[in-house]
C-alpha cells in the first residue's frame, strides 16, 4: 500500500495499491476489469512480490493492462500470453509471472497455449476474466457466450447447433495433471469479490510454492455490449452465467490443499 502519514494511535487499513499505477483506466463505466486489476494488485502487495513480478497483458479489453499494473509487463499477441509466460518463467524462475486474459484470448484463439501450459504444470498464474462476449471489438460471440445469448455475430442468439457450446475452461484445465489450483469465482457482489481475492492470493501462493499451474477464472460483466445498466449486468450474470459456469474449485492439488489448510 502507498505510504501516507498516519496519526499516532491509528493504523492504515485501506489505501491505493503500490502494484497499480496512478493511471486512469480506459474501461467502460460498470466494467469489472478495474476491480479485478485492483484485487491482483492488492495480492501482489500483500505477498511483497511487486518488484519481482512480470505480467503479460492479452489482446482484448485489457490490452492496455500494462499501463495499470505497476510491475514489468509485456503485451502478447492474441492468445499467446501463456506461451510468453512459459518462457519468461523458465528463463527467470525466481520471478512471479502472471497472465491476464479474457475469454476470446484464452478460450478461443489461445486455447492450445493455455491447455499446454496447464498440462506442463508451468509455474505461473493466469487471471481469466470471463464476460461471455468480445468487448473490445464491439460485442461479438465469444467462446463463452451462453446458448441463446444475442451478440453482434449471433444476432438471433447463440445457436449451439451451429456455433457449438460455451467452453467451460475451469473444468477443462482442472482435469489436467499439471494444474495445481484451478477455480472459478465471480465479482458480481461483495462476498464474491472477497472470495475472488482469496482465490487470487492462493493462486499466487501456489506459484510461489512451486506447486504448478494456477488459474482463477472470474465471471465478469460487460454492461456496454450486453446493453444493460451496470447493476442490471450484475443481475444478468448471476441469473444466467452462474448456472452454466458453476462457481468453485475444479482442481486443488494436495500441495495446494496443504497450503490452504496451513493458513
Amino acid at each position, binding site marked *: 500500500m502507498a505510504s501516507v502519514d498516519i496519526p499516532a494511535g491509528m493504523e492504515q487499513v485501506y489505501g491505493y495499491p503500490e502494484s497499480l*499505477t496512478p493511471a486512469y483506466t480506459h474501461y467502460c463505466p460498470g466494467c469489472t476489469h478495474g476491480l479485478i486489476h485492483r484485487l491482483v494488485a492488492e495480492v501482489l502487495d500483500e505477498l511483497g512480490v*511487486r*518488484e*519481482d*513480478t*512480470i505480467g*503479460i*497483458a492479452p489482446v482484448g479489453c485489457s*490490452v*492496455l493492462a*500494462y*499501463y495499470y*499494473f*505497476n*510491475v*514489468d*509487463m*509485456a*503485451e*502478447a*499477441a492474441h492468445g*499467446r500470453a501463456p*506461451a*510468453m*509466460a*512459459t*518462457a*519468461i518463467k*523458465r*528463463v*527467470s524462475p525466481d*520471478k512471479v509471472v502472471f497472465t491476464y486474459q479474457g475469454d476470446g484470448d484464452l478460450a478461443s484463439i489461445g486455447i*492450445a*497455449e493455455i491447455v*499446454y501450459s496447464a498440462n506442463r504444470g508451468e509455474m505461473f498464474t493466469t487471471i481469466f476474466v470471463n464476460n461471455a462476449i468480445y468487448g473490445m471489438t464491439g460485442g461479438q460471440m465469444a467462446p463463452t457466450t451462453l446458448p441463446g445469448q444475442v451478440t453482434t455475430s449471433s444476432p438471433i442468439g447463440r445457436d449451439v447447433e451451429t456455433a457449438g457450446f460455451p467452453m467451460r475452461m475451469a473444468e477443462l484445465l482442472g482435469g489436467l495433471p499439471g494444474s495445481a489450483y484451478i477455480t472459478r469465482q465471480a465479482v458480481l457482489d461483495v462476498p464474491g469479490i472477497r472470495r475472488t481475492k482469496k482465490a487470487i492470493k492462493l493462486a499466487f501462493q501456489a506459484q510461489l510454492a512451486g506447486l504448478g499451474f494456477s488459474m482463477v477464472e472470474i465471471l465478469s460483466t460487460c454492461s456496454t455490449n450486453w446493453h444493460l445498466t451496470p447493476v442490471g449486468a450484475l443481475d444478468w450474470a448471476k441469473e444466467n452465467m452462474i448456472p452454466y459456469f458453476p462457481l468453485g474449485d475444479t482442481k486443488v492439488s494436495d500441495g495446494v490443499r496443504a497450503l490452504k489448510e496451513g493458513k
Partner: protein
Amino acid sequence: MTKELWEGNAAIAEAAIRAGVEAFFGYPITPQTEVLEHFSKRLPEEGRVFLQAESEVASINMVYGAACAGARVMTSSSSPGVSLMQEGISYIACSEVPAVVTNIMRGGPGLGNVQPAQGDYFQAVKSAGHGDYHMIALAPASVQETIDMVVLAFDLADKYRTLVIIVADGSIGQMMEPAEMPPMRPVRPPEERASWALTGAKGREHNIITSLYLGAEAMEAVNLRLQAKLREIEKNEVRWKEHNTEDADLLLVAFGTMGRVCQTVVREAREQGIKVGLLRPITLWPFPSDRITELAGQVKGILTVEMNAGQMVEDVRLAVEGACPVQFYGRTGGIVPLPDDILPELKKLAADVAGSKEVE
C-alpha cells in the same frame, strides 16, 4: 581447436550453445529436427532451458517471452513452420527484442516436400510478417559458415535489438562436413540482462514491452525509429563473397547451396575460356545491391541461379537497373541444379550478350 565432422543441423544447435544461448523453444519438422534433438540433449546438460512447444505458434511466442525477459534465445524450423511464426516474428520486430530464428528451407508451397529448396527467399527478405520491417537474413553455404553465422546472428541480434534469421536449405542442414566449433562463451548471468528487459521493477519504473501504439503519430514514430535502425544495418552489415570477379565478363549471382554449386560452374566455365565471376550474397537482407550495381557496369550480363522459380533475381534486377541483361535459371521442388545444368545457361547468356554486341 581441431576440425570435427558435423552435420549442419546439429552444428547449428551446438554453435548456439557455444554462443551462450540460454533457451531453445521448437517443434519438430523435417529437414531440421536434428536441431531440436541436439538441443534436447545438450541444453539440460548445460543447465539451460529446452522446451518442445505444442506448435510453431507457441515456439515463436516463447522466444518472444524469453527475449522480453532479456535471455539469449532462439528457435528453428522449416518452411511451413516458419509460416506459422510470421505473426510472432512481426511482434518481435516491432517490440525490438533480440532473437534468432533458423529456417532450413524445404520444397513448397504448401506442405511441399522435405527436399532442399530456396523458395522462402521472399518470406525471409520481403514478407517476414505483417507491417514494415526487415529481419537480418543470413545465408550460409557450408556447415562451417553456418556455425560462424549462428554466433554472428546472436551478436547482431543483440547489437541492433532485432531478429536475425538464418536461411539455409535442407542440404546444408542434412550434410556432414569437417568444421570447427567456436570456444564456449559463458552464459550471460541474469543480473547482467539489459536495462529494458523484464526483470522485475526493483528500484526503477516498471518496464513495458509492447507492439501496440494506438495513436497514428506514435505508431509512425515507432516505424521511423525502426526504419532508421534498418538504414543503419544496411550501412554496416552487408556481407557477400566474390570469386573471380576481377576480370569477369559475365557474373553469376547465387546464394547458399546454389552459390557453392556455382563456384564449380565458374571453374569449369573458365577452363572453357568463359570469363565468369560469382557473387554470393551472405546477407540476403541487407542485400549487396551497391556491389552488384558496380559489377553491372563491368560485366556484359548476369545469370542468377536459385533453387526456386526466381526470387532473388528481382533484387538483382533492382540493383542492376537495366545496366546489363539479367537472366535467371532455377529449379524447384527440391531439385538442386548441377554445374552441368547451369553451364549451358551461362553459355546461352554469353551468346545472347555477344549477339547484342554485334547488333550494336
